[in-house]
């Protein structure tokens, strides 16, 4: 089913929209949740929560990116809820890697407001070569494992490690020079 049709179903409060989303994007949503949470059980719970949220909220922008964002947010909520009992290695690893983009932990300066920071990261990524932009999004938005990305990109994982390291460093410089992180 086309995205426009699914969106129309959602707006009409037609319950078949959820089924259509599961059929069309279920695998992607589950993959993202699993990448972040590391547990199939948590991933299923996350996707269910996300679908419930999608039902309650009017779609914003393109359908799949919107759904993926909801899954990410639900994954964070689930992680924070279960953090004391279980670990979500995928999510923690991504957070740790993204930490490279930040200045010293001792620095008391706060990051910019969420939307402004997001816009700057977006602007930064758009200025990067397509391959690097894709790599960053696959790794830090979709949470894909390096081995998976490497396999599809026909490169060795260690090359991706190097590239990601450089991208993060560039982003850090970019954010710092832009005054978004001091």
């Amino acid at each position: 089913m086309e995205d426009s049709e699914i969106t129309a179903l959602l707006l009409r409060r037609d319950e078949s929209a959820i089924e259509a989303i599961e059929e069309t994007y279920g695998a992607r949503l589950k993959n993202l949740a699993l990448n972040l949470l590391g547990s199939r059980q948590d991933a299923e719970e996350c996707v269910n929560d996300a679908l419930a949220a999608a039902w309650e909220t009017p779609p914003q922008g393109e359908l799949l990116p919107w759904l993926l964002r909801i899954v990410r947010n639900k994954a964070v909520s689930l992680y924070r809820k279960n953090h004391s009992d279980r670990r979500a290695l995928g999510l923690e690893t991504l957070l740790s890697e993204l930490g490279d983009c930040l200045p010293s932990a001792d620095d008391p300066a706060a990051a910019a407001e969420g939307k402004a920071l997001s816009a700057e990261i977006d602007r930064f990524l758009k200025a990067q070569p397509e391959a690097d932009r894709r790599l960053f999004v696959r790794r830090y938005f979709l949470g894909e494992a390096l081995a998976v990305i490497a396999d599809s990109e026909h490169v060795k994982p260690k090359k991706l490690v190097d590239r990601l390291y450089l991208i993060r460093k560039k982003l850090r410089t970019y954010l710092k020079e832009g005054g978004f992180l001091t």
Partner: protein
Amino acid sequence: MNEREWALFEAVTDLSDETVRSALTAEPKCPKRTLRKIAIAACLAVVLLAGFMIGGNHFGWFTEIKADNPSELEIDLGYSVLKCNMDLPDGYELHIQREYLPRTPEEKALSSGEKERTDYRSPDCNPPPIQIVNSEGKRVFGVVFYGKFKILEVLADFNEEKEHLEQHPGCPTAILEKNAIDKNGNHYLFYRNDYEYPPEIYPEGPVNDIERDYQYVVDITESKYAAFTAIGYGSEEEVRMLYDALNIRFEKDDENIPEEITIRLTVHKQLGEWDGNWDGDWRWPSVDEETALYDGTGGD
């Protein structure tokens, strides 16, 4: 996890549809270098040096080869032939001098001919550099060959590495030792034959032992530059001139021994910006004068 990391994570969540979509729909192309790697792995380009004298079919342990107008070079390694194409700048000529630096008494016996060397796969078989000298006899180019022969890896797109360097000079990547920029803005890269695993990138160390021995050979059929390993040899002034050196390491592979291994490279008569301190990172192995044995320090 601190709140700032979360803020960044959430900021990534709010990336634009366009940016997110770029990762969802784009099909990665088979990198050009992968196709090139396949071609090179199968058969690298071969160019013979005209008028080249080797002194026998086999490359002896002490062999000097001199070519007046070297453009091609062929070296018979016994079970493989190494051929190089070198476009030498004016005033430079090619000398091939193979000096074996033995590390043990046994190797000394092998190098002197007291004992016949039959195993080219010995890890201690360490053929020395092929050197290019200028008209004054000063060495300005070095190539190192090793006794184990197998094409281990073909370097990634040079331009990618160049960009990498531009952004992160001296970055401790797997293959990069040093970089230099000459007065014309050309970049020169210096590669080690060891794989560096900086802890900030590889907190758990090397992926595996095989990767630790990776040797990179750049494909320069389309690239302007050659693969480099700077080899210190002679005075510091001469060392400064050794910016273009090809370090080729081959490992014999029972399953895939190429009939011919060839490298094309271009010699640049260039001096890079050098701080005058070699830092001991790479210099030609030193030899104990009394025993004439490699003392295990320096170089490789």
